[in-house]
């Protein structure tokens, strides 16, 4: 029979090989699922993962999709390192978009140099408010952050629906549930004229590097890692858990808010009810695929962005519902977690019946 045995120390090889193994297994299994659905597996996987890149402006679309995922993934990897389970990044994303978008709607005539920073700052604050509330409820009232952050994701979504169907609805929008388009001067600069490459595309990798430095090279980062790996040791060392929870929730919330406001102003140009196609949940997978390392989050974000583009491509050219993206992402996360078992354990074939008693 197969037996799983502890290695005793972490395997260097599997540290890098396990995400790759997970990717290969995900490709194989999703191919099998497509085959079971009567679709040609090779062509479907090709449509999913290769075709989006070959299209005109494919790389540009990829960068724009990846920017919010990387930003949120970086924040989440920091929080998860400290065992702070913020799974409501979607809500923080939406709240950031609401706060920033509200500013953009309120001051359409302000000069661009003045209003755009205000819009961005409002977005960050919106996300931080949501994240901070979760942190406060956990620290002050011991309320489980998994559940509260998720509930706020639903609440933020309904708040967005309320605003775009009610007070903020575009009077000239023929009754569609959406706000007016933001004025041009509130949208922020473009990296290339007339493209949708907004500043988030540059900010996301910068944020990743900054948080990597903080996590790996600062005392605060060290405290985060200790709290995550050995909470008792952190307490004996005198690290204040509550402070770390605050920092984790404010940073991950603020980054999600930033991602939200840049998506609203940079990509969409208005607030609509389906502003986030589950970015906050995808960012969880991004964080894990990146091994909870901010630098690893960058390639992970690009890959998951590709699954969104692939979902669209599969919908257009194969007629598959774009929910396929969700399946692909779920399988990927399963395999990622499962393959990580190989980091600390080895699988050995033990001849039947003999059970090592330890």
């Amino acid at each position, binding site marked *: 029979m197969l037996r799983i045995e502890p290695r005793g120390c972490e395997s260097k090889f599997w540290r890098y090989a396990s995400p790759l193994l997970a990717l290969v297994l995900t490709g194989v299994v999703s191919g099998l699922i497509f085959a079971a659905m009567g679709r040609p597996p090779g062509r479907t996987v090709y449509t999913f993962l290769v075709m989006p890149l070959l299209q005109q402006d494919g790389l540009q679309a990829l960068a724009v999709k990846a920017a919010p995922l990387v930003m949120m993934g970086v924040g989440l990897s920091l929080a998860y390192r400290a065992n702070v389970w913020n799974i409501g990044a979607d809500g923080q994303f939406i709240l950031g978009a609401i706060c920033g978008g509200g500013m953009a709607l309120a001051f359409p005539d302000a000069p661009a140099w003045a209003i755009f920073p205000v819009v961005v700052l409002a977005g960050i604050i919106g996300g931080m408010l949501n994240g901070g509330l979760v942190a406060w409820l956990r620290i002050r*009232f*011991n309320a489980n952050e998994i559940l509260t952050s998720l*509930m706020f994701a639903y609440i933020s979504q309904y708040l967005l629906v309320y605003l775009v169907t009610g007070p903020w609805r575009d009077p000239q929008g023929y009754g569609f549930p959406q706000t007016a388009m933001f004025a041009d001067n509130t949208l922020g600069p473009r990296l290339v004229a007339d493209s949708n490459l907004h500043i988030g595309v540059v900010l996301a990798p910068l944020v990743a590097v900054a948080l990597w430095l903080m996590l790996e090279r600062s005392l605060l980062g060290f405290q985060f890692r200790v709290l995550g790996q050995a909470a008792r040791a952190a307490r004996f060392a005198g690290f204040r858990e509550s402070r770390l929870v605050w920092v984790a929730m404010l940073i991950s919330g603020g980054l999600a808010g930033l991602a939200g406001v840049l998506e609203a102003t940079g990509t969409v140009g208005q607030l609509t009810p389906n502003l986030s196609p589950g970015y906050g949940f995808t960012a969880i997978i991004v964080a894990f695929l990146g091994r909870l390392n901010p630098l690893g989050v960058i390639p992970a974000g690009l890959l998951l962005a590709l699954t969104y583009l692939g979902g669209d491509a599969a919908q257009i050219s194969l007629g598959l519902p774009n*929910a396929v993206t*969700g399946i692909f992402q*779920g399988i990927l996360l399963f395999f990622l977690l*499962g393959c990580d078992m190989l980091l600390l354990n080895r699988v050995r074939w033990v001849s039947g019946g003999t059970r090592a008693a330890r």
Partner: protein
Amino acid sequence: MTTLLVAFLVSTIAAATPLLLAATGELVVEKTGVLNLGVEGMMLGGAIAGFAAAHGTGLASVGVLAALAAGVALSLLFAVICLTLQTNQTATGLALTIFGRGFSALLGAGYVGIPAPTLPKLHVPGLSDLPVLGPVLFGHDALVYLALALLAAVAWCIRWTHLGLVMRAVGDSHEAAHALGYPVVAIRYGAVAFGGALAGLAGAYMSLAYTPMWAQDMTAGRGWVAVALVTFSAWRPVWLLVGAWFFGALMYLSLYVQALGVAVPSALLSALPYVGTVVVLVLISRDARRIRLHRPAMLGRPFQVGG
């Protein structure tokens, strides 16, 4: 007034049923020390499997069985990864929810907007025609009664049977249970499968009785509310029932007030149950000592022989 009251009670019991089913399953899972955050995904899997099977065969009962099987299948996926491969339970549960959402949306794409047979309502001649008591007590479908019976059975099993004792031992100290010779991992497998079966039934109730149709993400966070309910109840079955009825009432009221045409926008009213969940969680969790007293000590911790 009486008709209002009857409508309120009947609707509350109906809205509470999926929560109660899913939460009863999750209670058993958590009692053995496993945290399965995939309830939402398993409910969605059960909802679409039940709907598709009922639509295909024309029999609601086949749908219920299919939903149960789908819930078990999804939960075993979780069990293999997090019990055998010993992964992080929080992350694995999230993966199950993400997978279940995507999978159900894909399977359900062809079932949007079409009818399927619904679960028949009980009709006991005489009893069901009683004023007030008739519709409130004797006018529901089978799953409503099954949910209550399962809760009672689980409560009795955990409190009074040998199996319940072993389950609690596994959840409170897996090392000790293992040293006594109990198969820790096998017991957890069983509990996770039971939780999956009940989450599947909860999904079937959603798509075959509560709102008899299929819509993407139709459970709308009820799986998460069920997980919250288990914490709310402090792992005690009686309080699970109280909590489920409370949230059922909240869900009904947010619909009812909308129907009255009160000036509160419907989107804000729809957020009410989620706000309620946060408020109740905060109130309950405030007493950290009480939570720690009742919480299975091994909750969320992987078990490895010799590890």
